[in-house]
């Protein structure tokens, strides 16, 4: 019961936070001088479409209520929330924002969480190995690789990978999520396999920085835990080293990492956005980027809000996971 009420309490508390964030998000998008109409005019001018007449710009403003004060515009946006209406994307012929999100959000979430799980699945065993074979050749090698992984920014890695793939591998699996023939078709076995073939590159690119970081943290945690007295007790019972390392040491070393998932998530989301822009994937990243340039406030604001909500949820899930994993925390909740 304690856990359930904790979840409920946290969810309730996050609501005012989200409200404030929504105001912030909307405000930030509105900050640049000018508005969507101006951006529209600027784009038209630079792409050689000639200048747009003032009357046309005024019409646009009127249509989207761009000349209203901040709070009215904010209300226009927010009042649609209960019905799932997040406004329309002015820069995309008035497509409802909800539709755009529905199109791209699932893939975004999938990529983000896959990258997180990938990072953990690789990093944890390697971290454990590194700690138990401290100062071995492999340990030094892995540490070195980890450092490189942390240092290379995700988007540069994405560029790199594209380069390598063009030179050496079959490049049709890079830079997109589906091969041409499958776009828009229903999901069947073939499409699934094709999708899976496209997955490794984005997930690895997104997850590598996190993997490297987690590897090192896990290694450090393990080294700390292995010094604790209860490890000696475990050995004195006659348990073999693998059991001691995994069932006892790793079990505890993992907890700080679980509690930090709340910090990892934003980093992964950030990397995913940049990598998606470079690889031109069909996720929220490129959409956000375009909407910022066009000053499409409903679209940009909603995306910002949605990302923040994802974070809040992610944090909540991480905290619940921590409570499940560490009985001491569970106890405090009661």
């Amino acid at each position, binding site marked *: 019961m304690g856990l359930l009420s904790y979840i409920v309490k946290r969810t309730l508390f996050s609501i005012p936070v989200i409200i404030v964030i929504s105001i912030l998000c909307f405000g930030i998008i509105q900050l640049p001088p000018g508005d969507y109409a101006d951006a529209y005019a600027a784009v038209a001018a630079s792409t050689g479409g000639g200048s747009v007449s003032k009357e046309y710009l005024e019409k646009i403003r009127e249509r989207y209520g761009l000349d209203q004060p901040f709070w009215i515009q904010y209300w226009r946006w927010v009042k649609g929330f209960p019905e799932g209406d997040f406004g329309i994307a002015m820069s995309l012929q008035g497509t409802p924002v909800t539709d755009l999100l529905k199109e791209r959000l699932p893939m975004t979430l999938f990529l983000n969480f896959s990258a997180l799980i990938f990072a953990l699945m690789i990093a944890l065993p390697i971290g454990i190995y590194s700690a138990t074979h401290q100062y071995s050749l492999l340990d030094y090698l892995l540490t070195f690789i980890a450092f490189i992984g942390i240092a290379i920014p995700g988007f540069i890695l994405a560029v790199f990978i594209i380069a390598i793939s063009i030179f050496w591998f079959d490049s049709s699996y890079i830079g997109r999520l589906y091969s041409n023939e499958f776009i828009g078709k229903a999901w069947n076995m073939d499409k699934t396999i094709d999708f899976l073939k496209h997955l490794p590159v984005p997930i690895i690119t997104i997850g590598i920085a996190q993997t490297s970081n987690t590897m090192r943290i896990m290694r450090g945690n393990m080294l700390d835990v292995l010094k604790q007295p*209860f490890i000696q007790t475990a050995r*004195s*019972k*006659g348990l073999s080293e693998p059991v001691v390392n995994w069932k006892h040491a790793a*079990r505890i070393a993992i907890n700080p990492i679980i509690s930090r998932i709340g910090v990892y998530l934003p980093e992964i989301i950030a990397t995913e956005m940049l990598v998606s822009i470079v690889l031109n994937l069909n996720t929220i990243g490129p959409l956000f980027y375009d909407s910022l340039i066009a000053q499409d406030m409903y679209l940009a604001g909603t995306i910002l809000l949605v990302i923040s909500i994802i974070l809040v949820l992610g944090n909540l899930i991480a905290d619940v996971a921590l409570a499940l994993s560490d*009985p001491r925390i569970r106890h405090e909740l009661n």
Partner: protein
Amino acid sequence: MKENNVLVDVRDLAVNFHIEQGIVRAVDGVSFKIEKGKSLGVVGESGCGKTITALSLLLLHPQPEGQIERGNIFFYPDRENRIDIAKLGINSKQIRKRRGNDISMIFQEPMMSLNPVHNIGQQLLETIRLHQKVDKKTAKEIAIEALRRVRISAPERRMKEYPFQLSGGMRQRVMIAIALSCNPKLLIADEPTTALDVTIEAEILNLIIDLQKELGMSMMMITHDLGVIGEVTDDVVVMYVGKIVEKASTKKLFDEPLHPYTKALFKSRPEIRTQGRLSSIKGSVPNPYMIPKGCSFEPRCEVAMDICKKKVPEFFDLGEHHVSCWKYSNGEGL
């Protein structure tokens, strides 16, 4: 094998620590015997090597810094067999068969010595199922019985509790229960009551004495507290800077301590009748990197002679009472 009432026979055991600043001789050639059904006390100040001696009986001494340089640790599991523990591989199958099974150990800090995220039941069952081929149900019964044996109330309920929910005394009982769950022939207790309140200390000591008699097992009690030695042990060895300086039955040692160090230890205990300043041993324990030539106690000894500076004293037998001190040489070896 003539002496079939000997369980453990340690001969000239030496354990060295290899660290950055040099080599430390933590255990510098100690020999003693533990007889079946009897308890041996090992007393000395912090850093004298008593804990390392105990740990090396189970090859639990810190690796990789600590290494057994020479010596034998003969263990007689039954009439016909003799195993030299010192020659077994660290964490090998053979030594792990003995740990928790034939030879068990309990440690000083019960809070830190129990795994914080496993409940009591899990920690008990782990040992039981490792060494005994029983099914789950039987194992559970054994576990509950073990808890009952250490006089923990409501044992079934305790099985589901976690270490942080128990008091210090209870945790120590749990440790004892785990250690005794497979009916070991030898229990090694490393300062088991040092971290406990005085009243709890008495309870735990009595418990240990009772259990020892009940199970007919041998015991090795490590402590710096002469009071505990007097209460619990049949025989005792006194250690100083890695060497044994005096060996005798507890009664004989208390009746007539021979070695100057032992005498000083007895003198420095506060008694009700003590008035004025407490006596302390002048000087301090030597720097482990700068152990003096000759008798290591010489700089602090009130009755030191010339030869004490030059040669390490041999062991002299004064009738079931051995001392390593030139004062008792009777002309031998001078």
